[in-house]
Every structure is written in C-alpha cells, then in structure tokens.
C-alpha cells in the first residue's frame, strides 16, 4: 500500500501541530542532520543519511538528570525528566536497528533508564528505506539490509512521488490513523519496491566468526600495531549510533546545581581513570581493544547481537582513516596462537 508524498506531507503537517517532529534537514553547506521541523516541506529528500546519528533524541549529548537547590545544610532535589510526544521521521534502517540495540543497554536485568525509555516510549519512529547506498555503508554484512524495517514503528519506501507504507507496531498504528486511505501499489511501484528491497551494500565485511574469534583474542599482538595511528579522539564514538557510554557530572553555580549526563567514550584515557591515579585502561591499545571487544564480543554475550550496524559514520569521520572494516578483516585474518 502507498500514499502520495503530497498527502503524506499534509498528514505530517497536521501531526506536527500535536507532536514534536524531528526529521532530516539540510544546512547551507548540504550537511544533513535530524532537527525539529514544523512542516514536511522542510524535510530533506533523497538524503544519504544524517551526519550525526539520531540516537541523541533518546540519549542527548548533554542532558540534565536532576537539579537541586542547597539551603544551609538542606537540599531540595528535583527530577529533570521532561518528555514530549515526538515523531522521529526519516530514520534509516541502520539507525533504527541501533535503537533496538540501545534498548538492550538502557534496560538490563536490574535497572531501566527512565530518561531514555520515557523518550523512547513517547516517540514514534518512522523509518525510510535507503534508495542510495554509500561506499562506506556495510549494513548488509551486519544481518540486515538498506531496506530492513526493524526498529521502526512505521516503515516507508520512497517511490519518487509516493511512499510505500508498512505499519509495524501499535504505536505506528495509532499514528497512521491520520493518514488518508492508502492505495494499492502499481506494477511499476512493486518492481521498484523489489529493487530497493533486494539491494545490498557494495562494501561487505565478514563478521560471521568475529565474536568467537575475539573470545581468545584479548592478548593477541594484533592490538599492538592496530591502534598506532589512532589519535584517541571521540569522533568515532560520538558519530556511532550504538555507542552509549556516558559521563555524569555536576554543573553548579552558587547554591544551585544540576547533575547532567554527557556523552563520553572509551577512547578517552580519563574514561577509566580512578581518583587514585590508577588507570585500568591506560594505553591507547587497551582502549581500542575495549572498543572492538565491546562491540563485537561483550555486547553479543550481553545482548545477543553485534553492536555495530554498519552505518559507516566512524569510517567517514575518522581523522586518520582507521577503518573499522579493515580492523574486522584484520581480526579475521590474524592467526590465533594456540598455546
């Protein structure tokens, strides 16, 4: 079933009055990012993907957890959790899949992160399949494809002047009620849908054995040279849709303050530095190893999936071109020393 873009746009605009609507927007330099919009006309069409991942709408880079006022020896603490009903439009399959992975992080066997989940539960994710595939994309290697709908509540396929619509969840259904009647796909539409659905990324890596290989790889000499050119910035972790590590710090002025959480990353030496001065991951080597082990081994044990969705953002943003695909290849090719 499909809906014309014109009609979809009208529904979108109507919804924008009720919901906070987030969609891909292009800036003057042509850089696409997710931003609040008021009308469908602002939404960027035919974009590849956003420069920064949309994870920030559930897990902002800088977020107030609580605030407090100190009076004498007493203190009043206030929860700062604020949530708006939101529509997140235009999420690519890799980022939608990343939401599913993040869900497993922010809820574990003991705790649920209310800041993440309140937003998550109040947001309808409208995914859109990729019509174009970048040379750095490798989602096909990660068990899904540029047209996978996993993680979306409503999934669209761009057919030029219309969208093919799939309603996937209850949340999606509730929202889709405002769409005017959907019409059947034409034969040409169906062909186009089939083409898009069967598309694969040109870049591929083999992750079939990486988890088990890494099991005994911790002390491998591969890590010694792999990371030499890494400069230890956080452009990979900040541009990663699944990286979720954060810092909690205090922002204070006089007797008022707030506790905020900000993105942090395993590439920073301070990430694990104890107050005593001891640092369990004091070398760039151990930090890089942590990044790889966490994504491709630890995460699989804890959440059942690899914590990489093949969006290629880290490849594009790395200042020294330390390409995660090559690292995976390198692990695959490295010989295990059997003792």
């Amino acid at each position, binding site marked *: 079933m499909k809906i014309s873009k014109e009609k979809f746009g009208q529904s979108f605009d109507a919804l924008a009055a009720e919901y906070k609507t987030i969609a891909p927007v292009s800036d003057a*330099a042509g850089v696409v990012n997710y931003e609040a919009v008021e009308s469908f006309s602002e939404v960027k069409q035919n974009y590849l993907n956003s420069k920064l991942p949309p994870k920030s709408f559930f897990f902002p880079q800088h977020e107030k957890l609580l605030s407090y006022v100190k009076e004498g020896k007493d203190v009043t603490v206030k929860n700062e959790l604020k949530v708006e009903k939101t529509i997140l439009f235009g999420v690519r399959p890799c980022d939608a899949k990343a939401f599913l992975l993040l869900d497993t992080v922010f809820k574990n066997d003991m705790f649920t992160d209310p800041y993440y989940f309140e937003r998550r539960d109040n947001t309808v994710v409208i995914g859109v399949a990729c019509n174009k595939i970048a040379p750095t994309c490798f989602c096909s290697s990660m068990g899904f494809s540029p047209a996978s709908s996993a993680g979306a509540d409503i999934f669209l396929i761009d057919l030029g002047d219309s969208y093919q619509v799939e309603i996937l969840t209850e949340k999606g259904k509730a929202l889709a009620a405002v769409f005017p009647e959907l019409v059947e796909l034409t034969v040409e539409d169906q062909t186009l849908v089939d083409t898009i659905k069967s598309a694969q990324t040109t870049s591929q890596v083999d992750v079939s054995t990486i988890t088990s290989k890494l099991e005994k790889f911790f002390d491998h000499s591969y890590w010694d040279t792999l990371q030499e*050119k890494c400069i230890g910035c*956080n452009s990979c972790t*900040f541009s990663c849709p699944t990286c979720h590590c954060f810092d909690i710090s205090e922002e204070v002025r006089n007797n008022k303050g707030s506790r905020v959480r900000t993105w942090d990353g395993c590439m920073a030496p301070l990430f694990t530095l104890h107050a005593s001065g001891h640092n369990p991951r004091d070398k760039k080597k151990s930090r890089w190893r942590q990044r790889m082990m966490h994504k491709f081994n630890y995460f699989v044990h804890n959440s059942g999936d690899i914590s990489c969705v093949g969006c290629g953002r880290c490849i594009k943003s790395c*200042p020294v071109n330390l*390409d995660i695909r090559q690292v995976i290849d390198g692990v695959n090719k490295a010989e295990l020393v059997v003792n």
Partner: protein
Amino acid sequence: MNNIINDIRETARQLLADGKVDVVIGYEKGSLPLKATPCFVRSAQEVDRLIWDETCENNLASFVANTPGKKAIIAKGCDSRSLVVLIQENQLLRDDVYIIGVSCPGVVNKRKIEAEIGEILEATIAEGTISVKGMEGSKEYSFADVKDATCQTCRYPNPVIEDIHMGVTIEVSQSTPFADVIEMENKPDSERQAYFNQQMSKCIRCYACRNACPMCYCPECFVDCNSPKWLTGGVNRAENLMFQAGRVLHLAGRCVDCGACARACPQDVDIRAMNRKSAKDVLVMYHHEAGISETIKPALNEFSADDPEAFLVKE
C-alpha cells in the same frame, strides 16, 4: 611525484636496513579514495607500503613523541615546523628523529569535492588533475581548485628542518600573508560574532582537533581538568567557543598553522579562523612565526621592553 616516493622508500629501506631507525612514520594508501592514512613501517620489506601524494594530509609530528625508539618521519613543510616546536619545547630529542623532508605542493580538500559530487567512489590523481567519480556524478578538478584551505595560504611548503630532502623546492608566492584574517577583521563585530556562533554550534567536542594537533600534548588538557572545572559538560555554542578560544590561547605563538585540526574535525568547524588570527597577531606584534627556526625563541617565551600596548584601557 613518483620519483619522490621511490626516493622516500629507498631512504626508508636504507634507514631500517642499517638499523639507524626502529620505525619510519609515513603514509600508506587509505581505505577511502583521496585519503591516505598514517603508517608505521618497522622492516625494510614493508617500505613499499609507503606512499606520497596530495592525499597525505595528517600531521605526522603528532605521533613522534609517543612512538618509542629512534624514528624517521616523513615531514611536509608544516610537519617540520611542528617538529621544531616540539624540539624547542623538549618534547623530542633532535637525535631521536631522522627527518625525511618533502617539499609539499599541498593536500587535497576532499570535503569540497564531496560537497559537490557526493561521496567519492573512485579517484585518480595525475599531473595536477584529480578525476573523481562520486555518487552524484563525475568531475575533473584541477588540483589548485580543490587544495586544502591551509595549503592555499601556506608560506612554508619546504621543510625548515630535515636530514634529507625529497622533491623539488617549491617557490612560495609572496602574496599578502593572512589576507583571509584581515578580511575577517574588517567585517563588523556582529558579523564576526555571527560567524563564530555558527561555527561553534557545529562542534560536538570530540576533541579530534586537539588530538590531531602535534602541539596539544598536555597530559591533562584544561577541558578535562575537574578542579578547577573550566568547562562543564555542556555542548553548546558558548562552551564550545570557550574550549576553542582556550585552545587557541594555549597555542598562541606555537601554532604552525598546519591545518590538521580543521581537517580532523568531523563537523567541519572552521577552527583555523581563530588560530590564524592569533598567528597573525603574533607575527604583526612580535615578528615571530612558530617553528621556523630552532634558534628563535617562541614568541610568548620572550618579551621586549617596547612591546605594543595598544590593548591597554583608554583613560
């Protein structure tokens, strides 16, 4: 260019074979078109990995201090200036590093090309022409048109310190230095403020600029210091400006304007605009340029009784 790489490889081979150095820090072909990547060559057999072309954009000086042992480094003009500053600041022993100086015609600005023709699928460089196939179309560029902004204003393409030289010395056109800064200075305050606001709001504080900078070697950067806490975790225009301004002031008289920060920035923030302003001020006020001579003291380590005082409050 081909001759240069042969010379570089031969030199590297000799150095490693003779045991004069433990490692040669150079560039190899990267995984993306028009992008080279730093490489560390430790045996004579591996030297053929080394490349030299207009894609060798990283400043390798930032790796030198952290690489143990005796090392050889392939240094462009700007890299060599960074090495001078590092040596002056006792971060590096001159004897520990063998500098393979290469006269640099500049590096390519990949982003400029990508903004026009989308992500690059394939690219070839030959005789000053770059032929690129992008997702949105193909195009041929003359190298001069897509040269990195830093290289367009470069005044020291030839290494200022080296043990061996590669390539033909490049003549520098003596146009007005810092014309770009002067243009910026002549704009009204509000316009400049708006420009920096817009630039700073892009910053995500990944610190790629800081980490790519050979001069940013502090064990604890002021942004990471928690008492006093100079910056909060806030990522907003004002905080970002304070970070960048703080960094620029730390680099005053030390920045060699290699542009590594700007090229490293994943968000394409115009970091150089501030660094170059400071470099210009240092040149105008103190007649100093960082890293051009081992014997000239850095501008802020020196003073003179008649330094300009125009900044004093009007009374």
